[in-house]
């Protein structure tokens, strides 16, 4: 079987929790932290890697109100606050995103375009500070390089449509 990007992402989480009691919930939390919600593909990959049937995973996912099955915003902006990123300026990036989007971490903009969240180390400390926007990973992020990712679709950088 060929590994997709999702499989690789999920592998780290699966490895951490595999064969531990009560670990499925923790692993699903891990997925939600990573993606802002639990994408189907990631759930399937997790099932495969942890050897848990998808049926069981969705039982758990839908049992707790905590889990989100749909992306909360079209663009999920995740700012890594792991140690490396933290030291390299992640808090400032988070403040910037929060201010420009007008929402706090964990919130979604009223138009549903953006969801902002904090994640723990995404495993690319060499590229710190790291921000992901949906599947896309931004490396060595600066205030300037983050800027364009926080704009409404269609808008250009100087604010004109």
């Amino acid at each position: 079987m060929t590994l997709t990007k999702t499989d690789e992402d999920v592998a780290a989480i699966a490895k951490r929790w595999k064969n531990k009691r009560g670990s499925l919930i923790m692993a699903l939390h891990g997925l939600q932290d990573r993606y802002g919600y639990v994408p189907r593909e990631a759930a399937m990959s997790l099932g495969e890697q942890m050897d848990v049937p998808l049926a069981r995973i969705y039982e758990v996912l839908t049992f707790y109100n905590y889990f989100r099955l749909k992306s909360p915003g079209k663009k999920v902006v995740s700012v890594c606050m792991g140690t490396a990123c933290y030291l390299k300026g992640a808090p400032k990036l988070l403040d910037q995103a929060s201010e420009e989007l007008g929402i706090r971490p964990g919130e979604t903009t009223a138009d549903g375009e953006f969801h902002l969240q904090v994640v723990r180390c995404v495993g690319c400390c060499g590229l710190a500070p790291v921000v992901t926007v949906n599947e896309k990973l931004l490396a060595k992020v600066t205030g300037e390089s983050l800027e364009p990712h926080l704009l409404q679709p269609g808008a250009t950088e100087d604010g004109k449509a």
Partner: protein
Amino acid sequence: MTDMIQATINGLPVEVAPGVTILDAARQVSVHIPTLCKHPDLDATAACGMCIVRVAGSSKMLRACCTPVEQEMEITTEDPEIIQVRRTVIEMILSKHPNECLTCGRNQNCELQTLAADFGLREICLDSVVPDLPLDATTKAIVLDPRKCITCGRCIQVCQQIQNVWALSFLQRGFDTRIAAAGDINLADSPCVRCGQCSAHCPTGAIVEYDNTQEVWDNLLDPDVYCVAQLAPAVRVAIGEAFGFPIGTNLTGKTYAALRRMGFDAVFDTNFGADLTIMEEAHEFVKRFTTEGSVLPLITTCCPSWVDFMEKFHDDMIPHFSSCKSPQAMVGALAKTYYAEKMGLDPAKVYVVSVMPCTAKKFEIIRSKEMASSGFWDVDVSLTTRELARMIKQSGINFPAVKEEQPDHLLGAYTGAGTIFGTTGGVMEAALRTSYFLLTGENPARVEFQKTRGLDGVKEGSTVIAGHEIRFAVAHGLGNVETVLRRVREARDAGTEPPYHFIEVMACPGGCVGGGGQPYGVTDKLRAKRAAGLYQDDQAGLWRCAHENPYVQKLYEDFLGEPLGEKSEQLLHTSYHSRPEYRR
């Protein structure tokens, strides 16, 4: 021996072994306790609360289906208060249930409807809140209507534990709990293998077979269409249940007659196809067995759910799979070639209906291009036993009074080997009979191979033919297959002699007699009775080995040539493909 437990039920003394539930103990003394979620095949889920009883000295009411009898218990199963509580249970369920009995697939056959009738409910005092949930008919084999689900959990236990498919689960919780395909997708996109065991165990109309009867009526009505039917082995010993016959009564001749009354131009028997399957498969087996370096064990493939399961979850077994199509597919292919030719019919106008104990057969007929080997879909539509019973009733045929008839012999004559295909172990036994003949040139002195029979989940045995030991395994209920396959893999990986030479698998517990499209109310007792009906049919037959079937011999002489020959390969064989996109 452990001490027996003494108790009383409604004052009647009862003695049971430790662990026996109040429900089973009550049965022992002919006391009926109403149940709804409990099924005899399955562990109690204790979901419904119908079976409550009272035990002296306790103020609580206990659920009989999951409470073991204790020493000196004084059990009361009915008093006005118990009955009132049970009424309330039904009322609560009905308040969430659509009021659609008249158009429901389970009308007159529904455990919930029966309870409501028994309790004489005339009005529901609670507000009705029927959830608005969509129907899922995507498999075209079974239809899931989650609104009618009473969350008993039977189907989930069947699909997860017995079949090990994990296509179904509950989602959400509490009041919002609903049945759904695993992962909340379409059932057709789930790993579901369409065995229909969920539908056979569901107490209500929440899971029923996909109904194809109208399409069959339409074709029967069309004078330009030449309609032919074929009848699967397991159908003949089950259809009578819909007409009040004792379980296991063999009604082959009456069913042929009923099909003709309904307007079929010719009536074939899938048992003929089973004989033919054995001719091809036994040749395939003997070829592999006698050729150095062949892939063994050979694994049977007449069960489409099993084929589907293997393609989805055990694709490393593809080389072990017999290339033989199933009996229904063989009969279909021949109806539109051999039979059409003999009768001077335009194959485009021949419409083949198969009557099967099975919901998965609805899928098998379109599972690959090879199912159109005649140039048309070889089988046009597949009905379950339940659908045929309904059609017979619609026709107004007095089934019990119908005079028995013969099939159209060209594709209808059969041997005892063909008829036992309908029960677990039957395919193996039939194959061994003919393999014996192929290896020795004579029929076995005793055609019965007892080790293939019975309801143990995995049956193993061996027999010596012409000085060679042939080891076989028979598994039914897909969960049981894993044990057998594990042993095959272990030997393969260790490079040692395979544990078996030949494996038979049927997806449904009991084999096709317990198929997902059979009349309701299946238990092991009933499976055994239906199987006994088939073994009797075998015993009563003139011929007991597939190769003795004169019409199969004629088919080879006039049309096919020889087993595994060019024409056979084209019409009667198929191939398999790994389908890793389905994950359980």
